[in-house]
């Protein structure tokens, strides 16, 4: 897997600082699992967090806090929960570890050749997270974003004004970015997408589809 598109350093820093919503965290974790370079950056950012933590003026704990903690050391350790098994995104394609926590959903048709599994609803305060499956050689309706959108390709590939995106690649779109992705020929393109807000389709027909799309 040759990864050519990475998240911005400022996004990785926000991730390491624990400031991203769950949808964005899951998409970044998916990219990080296959990108040693970005994992290294996250480690550097976490080390910054450690240095800042060390430099904070301490706030005294309650007087009996340590005694309490020592008493709790006697308690039997909680056994780690086994990670759930991967579920299948498509035939022959198990979900990445970052998605094992989620209940497998069914692909629902959105537009001809385009279907979707919603993993986190847009209104739960953790960002909207969904899988998009696009048939080969399909042109998506042109759309812009009202907020940040993170996309990680899981299978296949697509192209837009920013370049070609294959498995592991991460694309970061913001409000200033309109695009019209086209999936590569060959196999279905499956992407994992985190969005902070609804898409804004352009053109009358596409706008009519917006409520159906619900993303």
């Amino acid at each position, binding site marked *: 897997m040759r990864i050519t598109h990475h998240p*911005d*350093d*400022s996004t990785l*820093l*926000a*991730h*390491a*600082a*624990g*400031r991203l919503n*769950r949808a964005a*965290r899951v998409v970044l*974790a998916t990219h*990080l699992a296959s990108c040693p370079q970005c994992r290294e*950056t*996250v*480690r*550097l*950012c*976490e*080390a*910054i*967090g*450690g*240095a*800042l*933590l*060390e*430099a*904070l*003026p*301490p*706030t*005294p*704990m*309650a007087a009996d*806090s*340590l005694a*309490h*903690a*020592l008493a*709790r*050391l006697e308690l039997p*350790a*909680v056994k*780690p*929960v086994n*990670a759930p098994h991967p579920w299948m995104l498509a035939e022959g394609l198990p979900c990445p*570890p*970052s998605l*094992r*926590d989620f209940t497998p959903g069914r692909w629902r048709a959105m537009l001809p050749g385009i279907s979707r599994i919603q993993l986190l609803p847009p209104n*739960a*305060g*953790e960002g909207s997270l969904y899988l998009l499956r696009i048939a080969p050689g399909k042109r998506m309706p042109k759309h812009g974003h009202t907020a940040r959108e993170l996309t990680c390709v899981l299978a296949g590939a697509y192209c837009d004004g920013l370049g070609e995106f294959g498995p592991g690649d991460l694309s970061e779109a913001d409000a200033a970015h309109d695009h019209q992705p086209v999936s590569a020929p060959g196999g279905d393109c499956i992407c994992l997408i985190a969005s902070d807000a609804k898409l804004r389709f352009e053109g009358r027909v596409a706008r009519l589809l917006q409520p159906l799309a619900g993303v």
Partner: protein
Amino acid sequence: MNGFVYQPEYALAGYAPPRAPLRRRGVTRPPGGAEFARLVQAVAAARDRSAFARLYEHFAPRVKSYLLRLGAGAGQAEELAQEALLSVWAKAAYFDPEKASVATWVFTIARNLHIDARRRERTPGGMAAGLEVMLEEAAPAQDAADMLLMALEQQERLRSAVLTLPADQAEVVRLCFFQDKPHAEIERELGIPLGTVKSRLRLALARLRRLLDAQI
């Protein structure tokens, strides 16, 4: 508003300027983090309660400060700080001093606990975010004293460098870690455009990376 008043001077107070790089093997002055790493290893190997108590007294009050800055209430900050240190006890065998300093490890534990706590507030009864522990839990380090010494030196250099970032970069980096707000709100707070927030964060990272690369 979470009650956190931005104080540019606090993170720098009381810290000496960065030391000259330590390049040689057999450094005489052990980096500050070495002692904490030894304490964690004592907890892992011998379930040493007095070592745990020393870690607790040092880190719990700092984790509490961190959580207070993120907007946690006093009770919750106290509780999560204790949880974080109990995790240090439970996971001590997984700590790898070559990969991270104890402070960094404790930071990631506290950060993940805070993320989980926020999530539980949103979705009562939601499951624990077992897969969200972003720090790799590697096997205990082999006894490679030289490697360890180099790692500890590097961690110490990085720590000094973080505390001596140029003021404008230090400001956005600190806000990024200590305020639970999107970049866009940091921008509002500082009265600088979002692009500037991001470019300052990038500059800070580039500076730290250069520093590490130059001294490997």
